[in-house]
């Protein structure tokens, strides 16, 4: 049988031969993840299961990133409970405070995920690690508790939609635009229960950070995973981030796909997802002049160093428009330090932006950037559901970092090419 990337990676975790799409596979997991919102429930379930130890103290990661730095007493109590659990279990990869970042930016950076891994996380954006050739998928807390106890879980082998991008990316168009464009084409249920597998020259040319951005939003099309081949670029990234033993992985030629979508990107404009679904995607030119009150540049989608540089390139020598709050969130301490060392913070501060510690806060309307009724934001985050960033009467537009930065400068949604 010729395997898709999904089948190939699942096979690495299974003792039985992986079957066709729709069959059930029981697989060992390489890493189990939970955060400050989902870990408390996972721990409750774990105890309820009568489990007394985690399957491997080095392969459970607990990252306190959503309501942290702790926004109130209730969130502080939640983190306290997780911290105690981590101590009791002797968990190696517990992150809080100064060594903590946005989980899906942090784990690849620490070399904790890599090609061929099977990762389950109690966070829907766990699919991010598909950017490194890992089968990574979001589950709920109780599924994660089972994986923490047993070191395995069951997976339905997903049918795969193969997506190939050809041509050459125009200026100011990048990974975020590719994935927004795709979600606009297939809709928020377009990949429901399925895996997305990416390929083509544009993907081969794309850097690993861009692939992580794209894989991150596979869930926004309903996808179970968003998978990229692990090529020489992936291996170089892994080497650089302390994951030396990584191997390349490609799908088999002639693997069976549910459908194959092909797009030429040469004429693509920056894409913007309009309220209130990530599928309401339009080229930036069709939404220009929509005014914004807040700009958020960060999150597990676009809070990496390349995103910081992209935003800084636009903001350099310019000012954030009066009345606009521009919040910039480097996703991890390492990205924060590098941004500082490269002088990007000087650019952000000179422009009048706010630089925040690493946190998921504003993306989910948690804290550090909540919208009031009638307010509108443009963000590099991944969801624009009604009320996502605060009031049910607020609006969120999604875009790439340079469009977000350009919009901060003008106070209206702006194509950076028009500045």
């Amino acid at each position, binding site marked *: 049988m010729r395997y898709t990337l999904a089948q190939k990676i699942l096979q690495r975790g299974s003792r039985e031969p992986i079957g066709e799409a729709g069959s059930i596979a029981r697989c060992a997991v390489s890493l189990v993840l939970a955060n400050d919102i*989902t870990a408390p429930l996972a721990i409750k379930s774990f105890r309820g299961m009568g489990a007394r130890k985690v399957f491997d103290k080095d392969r459970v990661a607990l990252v306190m990133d959503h309501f942290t730095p702790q926004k109130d007493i209730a969130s502080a109590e939640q983190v306290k409970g997780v911290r105690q659990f981590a101590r009791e279990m002797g968990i190696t990869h517990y992150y809080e405070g100064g060594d903590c970042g946005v989980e899906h930016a942090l784990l690849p950076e620490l070399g904790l995920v890599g090609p061929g891994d099977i990762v389950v996380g109690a966070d*829907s954006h766990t699919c991010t690690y598909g950017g490194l050739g890992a089968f990574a998928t979001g589950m709920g807390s109780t*599924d994660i508790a089972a994986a923490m106890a*047993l070191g395995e879980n069951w997976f339905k082998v997903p049918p795969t939609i193969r997506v190939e991008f050809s041509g050459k990316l125009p200026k100011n168009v990048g990974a975020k635009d590719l994935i927004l464009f795709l979600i606009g084409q297939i809709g*928020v249920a377009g990949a*429901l229960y399925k895996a997305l597998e990416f390929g083509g020259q544009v993907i081969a040319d794309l850097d690993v950070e861009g692939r992580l951005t794209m894989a991150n939003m596979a869930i926004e099309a*309903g996808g179970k995973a968003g998978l990229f081949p692990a090529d020489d670029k992936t291996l170089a990234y892994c080497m650089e981030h302390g994951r030396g033993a990584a191997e390349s992985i490609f799908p088999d030629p002639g693997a069976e796909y549910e459908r194959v979508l092909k797009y030429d990107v040469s004429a693509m404009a920056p894409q913007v997802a309009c309220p209130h679904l990530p599928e309401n995607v339009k080229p930036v030119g069709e939404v220009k002049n929509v005014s914004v009150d807040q700009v958020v540049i960060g999150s597990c989608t676009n809070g990496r160093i390349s995103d910081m540089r992209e935003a800084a390139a636009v903001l350099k020598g310019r000012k954030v428009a009066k009345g606009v709050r521009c919040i910039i969130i480097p996703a991890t301490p390492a990205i924060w330090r590098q941004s500082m060392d490269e002088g990007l913070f000087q650019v952000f501060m000179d422009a009048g932006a706010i630089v925040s510690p690493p946190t998921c806060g504003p993306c989910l309307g948690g804290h550090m950037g909540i919208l009031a009724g009638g307010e509108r934001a443009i963000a590099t985050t991944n969801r624009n*559901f009604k*009320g996502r960033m605060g009031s*049910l009467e607020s609006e969120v537009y999604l875009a790439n970092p340079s469009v977000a930065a350009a919009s901060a400068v003008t106070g209206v949604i702006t194509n950076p090419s028009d500045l």
Partner: protein
Amino acid sequence: MKYTGTAHKVGAHIDTDAIIPAKFLVTTDAQELGANCMEGLEPGWIKRVKPGDIMVAEENFGCGSSREHAPIALKGAGIPVVVAHSFARIFYRNAFNMGLILMEIGDKVSEIKDGDKLEIDPDSGTIRNVTTGAVIQGKPVPPSMQELLDAGGLVPYVKKRLAKQEA
């Protein structure tokens, strides 16, 4: 077991932020989450629900976050069954893990109106619309999910497995 209750109908792509917004995620308590169920769709929505009532939705119900607080909130609100055109994947797993019954019936969901009285038999996959007299034959709950429901959810299911491992 059969379930009888009033249908509360919602639209397509109802996300987990609508079912239980992030600001309520500072607890894991079912009663507290249940009291704020669907607060992201319409404030005060829960006031019209009686325990035993049935949620009916269009396509892709439960899309978005992996938060298990969403099925817990629905159960906490006293809703034992959700009937939908289709469900988002993570929500589907979470619901059965929590013992919340889901029935996927595709286009036939248009035959149910808000306020209809329904009688549901998950074992046979039958939905009887008491108000109109119509009967919708859906798929029975899949055997692997039935096993979870029979065990009382994933927690007791794994508990049994762990006990066996230690024995």
